[in-house]
């Protein structure tokens, strides 16, 4: 039996279209569901007051500080390393066994699950280097985790800078480093910033790697050697231990809004950059 092609074509459209619709609908549902329940709880006073009674009452101020501090430390460490790697790969070397190895290492690092980063951060930073559960341990662990993202986006951004820019710079007698510093990096900056923002977004949402390295203290941290709890860890503890579903929704809404805002800004920047390039 042979079904006429125009029927199979229509059936394919129906099935594939339904699958696409389902995908988008589910993902949108998740955001709408959380915001719907969480936005009424979310207010300035919720964000800027201290939690009471393990988070049953009060706000999320210390976790807000943790959520700012950890990603900030992570990008301060990972950005120079990531951009440096990208510069080396694009400007200072040809494709070789070395670059293949670096790329493979980066790909592998990107695929490592966050719980492994958590185990590693715990045994290396917290225990071996005696940093304890602290902002420092957490930030360093997150830096390892977001390094591949920053390397990849920076490399793409640097490659997108036209070769003619470099040639003009060289023809004026500039050295390679001068060309990199004055021509390549400024032109690749928006792309690099995009990578850094994606790294921030991933750090904000991370739980498994953070809970074993930065700890879960609800006290306000005073230095980078203090333990801190991020919003995602706070949300996890509130939801899992059934402490307060209302505050859990509020924290989830704050979490989703910050992650989406950071990612949205990253994409906006990338699009503007690409539009200017072409």
């Amino acid at each position, binding site marked *: 039996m042979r079904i006429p092609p125009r029927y199979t074509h229509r059936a394919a*459209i129906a099935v*594939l279209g339904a699958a696409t619709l389902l995908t988008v609908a589910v993902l949108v549902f998740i955001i709408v569901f959380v915001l719907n329940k969480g936005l009424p709880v979310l207010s300035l006073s919720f964000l800027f007051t201290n939690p009471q009674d393990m988070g049953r009452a009060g706000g999320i101020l210390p976790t807000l500080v943790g959520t700012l501090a950890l990603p900030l430390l992570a990008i301060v460490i990972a950005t120079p390393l990531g951009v440096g790697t990208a510069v080396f790969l694009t400007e200072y070397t040809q494709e070789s066994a070395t670059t293949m190895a670096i790329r493979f290492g980066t790909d592998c690092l990107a695929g490592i699950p966050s719980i492994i980063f958590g185990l590693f951060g715990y045994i290396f930073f917290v225990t071996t280097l005696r940093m304890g559960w602290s902002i420092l341990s957490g930030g360093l662990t997150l830096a390892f985790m977001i390094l591949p993202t920053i390397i990849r986006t920076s490399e793409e951004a640097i490659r997108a800078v036209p070769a003619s820019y470099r040639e003009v710079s060289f023809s004026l007698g500039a050295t390679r480093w001068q060309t990199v510093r004055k021509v390549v990096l400024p032109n690749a900056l928006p792309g690099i910033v995009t990578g850094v923002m994606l790294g921030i977004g991933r750090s904000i949402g991370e739980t498994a790697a953070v809970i074993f390295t930065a700890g879960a203290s609800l006290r306000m941290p005073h230095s980078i050697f203090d333990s801190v709890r991020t919003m995602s860890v706070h949300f996890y503890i509130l939801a*899992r231990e059934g402490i307060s579903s209302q505050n859990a929704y509020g924290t989830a809404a704050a979490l989703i809004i910050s992650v989406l805002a950071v990612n949205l800004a990253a994409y906006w920047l990338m699009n503007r950059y690409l539009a200017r390039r072409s």
Partner: protein
Amino acid sequence: MNLVGEKGVQRIFQIIAFSSIAALALIALFILAEGLPFILHYGPGQFLLSSDWQPQQGRFGIFPMMVASLWVTLGAMLIGAPLGVAGAVFLTEFCPRPVMRAVKPTIELLAGIPSVVYGFIGVMVLAPLIRAQWGGPGLSVLAGAIILGIMILPTVMSISIDALLAVPQSYREGSLALGATVWQTTRMVTLVAARSGIAASIILAMGRAVGETMAVIMVAGNAVKIPLSPLDSVRTMTANIALEMSYATGIHRQALFATGVVLFLMIMVLNTIASRVMRRAGR
């Protein structure tokens, strides 16, 4: 930078460039150093194939956790891979390009939703639904598979779209000129040409599903036993590490690191396969 000179700058970049490999090596070294001696001392066969997990009695068999990880991951692939690939095909082959260009970033944006949020949705919405519909505890293999399946959708879709877009337009035009419908062209030409990239997207997503922790802890129920039906509560390897790490000491902690070693090796194998397949797709 006149202090170090051109050669010095180059040397600095050369050193920095090894940071990702150094990071990977450090991670492998410390996880292995903490977990491998335990595996060798306890006996790999006993550790991997025994179903007896009683940390207080010094008995550490992770077989149920390995089976749980396998089932949850397979379930997630069964849900996430077809939906993701179907979405990618629909958006690239059947939709006008502007629609695709609007939907793809939206989906990638949603990939940023933290895993704890997915887990929470699983607990609040999915588990009660499963409990009401089919009975059982609700927090189960099925719930874990569905939530993980949703979580990997953006990965599968986004990489598959890139693979499909990389197929030269002339291939499609050749097929259409022969009188094939768009679906025939997709099935017999485009999908065949993009199959390596699509396979890579599925393998990478599998790596993510195996390694996912927080969402699985929240929705899979965490009972240490070999599941007999999709409605049974299970504990995956990742969940086992995260649940007990907070209070484990001594040999118990080493056993958790040993679980991490098994997980790490599995992920490395999956990543290596994916990167091989990817490279073939690039040719």
